[in-house]
């Protein structure tokens, strides 16, 4: 029985901090109102960035929209937050299945089965995979997928390109315009540079002017100094540098020892959320660099 969307919306309006957004988002998703579901999920995530269920909901909506790249990141984040989140484990298995990485798909399903040994959908999906069942040819996305779990691999597209999944069987050529594709705000405020201050991807603008090259040049020095400081002060290897400035917040990370990633956002994005965004961008940049 589908939940009453109007009643759930009303509940959420009365208490925006409540977790009712999870039920509302899911109800909208099941009705195929994906844009509305997406807005509900995103608003919920902004209020509850560390809630695995919120990332799971967001990933399911993205999967229905066939945005598998971002769905992968969301389920990946959910599992980082809650390693036993079976919804996210099944979702990741589903996406691995789609790109043909059966070993990873099975591993994630097995992990889910350890948590929920009585879930028949997991056994069913495992049996299908082990039986070598070939999914059907792609079909138009007229209807939203009811559930992103691997219990339904035969109803979806098996050959879709998921470029940022590390195990994609046919890596696409290095393309700097794709490095942050699918990430929130991918077209601005993200910059990837090498150890010598050369731009690898992304761009930065300030008051309409392109400041990419000058910032990249300064970043190389920041990276070296951060590494030196962490080493000499016994802080170990540095994983990130967050900063608040008068007109924006930034987060620095290094996807590989030789590369540095800068994420810049306005002051409205708290440092904690910026760190999560940077974590995703770092994972994407790392995969992109490894494929190059």
């Amino acid at each position: 029985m589908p939940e009453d969307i109007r009643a759930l919306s009303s509940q959420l309006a009365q208490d925006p901090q409540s977790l009712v957004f999870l039920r509302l988002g899911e109800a909208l998703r099941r009705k195929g109102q994906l844009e509305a579901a997406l807005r509900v999920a995103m608003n919920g995530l902004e209020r509850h960035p560390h809630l695995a269920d919120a990332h799971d909901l967001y990933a399911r909506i993205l999967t229905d929209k066939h945005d598998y790249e971002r769905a992968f990141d969301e389920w990946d984040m959910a599992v980082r937050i809650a390693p036993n989140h079976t919804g996210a484990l099944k979702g990741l298995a589903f996406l691995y299945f789609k790109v043909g990485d059966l070993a990873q798909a099975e591993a994630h399903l097995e992990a889910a089965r350890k948590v929920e040994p009585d879930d028949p959908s997991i056994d069913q999906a495992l049996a299908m995979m082990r039986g070598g069942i070939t999914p059907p040819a792609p079909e138009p996305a007229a209807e939203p997928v009811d559930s992103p779990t691997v219990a339904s691999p035969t109803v979806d597209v098996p050959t879709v390109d998921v470029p940022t999944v590390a195990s994609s069987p046919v890596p696409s050529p290095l393309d700097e315009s794709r490095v942050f594709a699918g990430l929130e705000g991918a077209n601005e405020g993200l910059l990837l540079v090498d150890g010598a201050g050369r731009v690898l991807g992304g761009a930065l603008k300030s008051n309409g002017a392109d400041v990419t090259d000058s910032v990249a040049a300064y970043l190389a020095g920041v990276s070296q100094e951060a590494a030196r400081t962490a080493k000499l002060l016994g802080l170990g290897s540095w994983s990130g540098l967050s900063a608040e400035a008068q007109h924006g917040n930034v987060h620095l990370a290094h996807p590989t020892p030789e590369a540095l990633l800068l994420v810049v956002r306005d002051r409205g994005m708290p440092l904690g959320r910026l760190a999560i965004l940077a974590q995703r961008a770092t994972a994407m940049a790392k995969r992109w660099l490894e494929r190059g």
Partner: protein
Amino acid sequence: MSSALELVTRVRGVRGAMLVSADDGLVVAEQLMEGIKGSAVAALAASLAGRLRRAMEAAGIGTSVFWHLQGDKGALVVVPGGGREGGILVVAVAEPDVNIGLVRLELLRAAEAML
């Protein structure tokens, strides 16, 4: 000055706090646990602060009001408490799992107390 630093060092996980001259990286005041070399912290924090300031200005977001370097064995947390260039840095060295939000608040209070 020392009372302001004391509030910072009361935060669980903070191993030391100090005031540093941003211009020359020298210690102005310090409250450190044993084993932490104040002069090294001061010099490195000031150097990194200078490089970070230039990068942030180049990015057009102004000067920093707080920054935090996270390592797997500890963290360096800094609030620049002075003018555009130079001034004083309020610095804390902390355990890796310290409550950064709390340290930030105390550093900002310490910086305000110096004004």
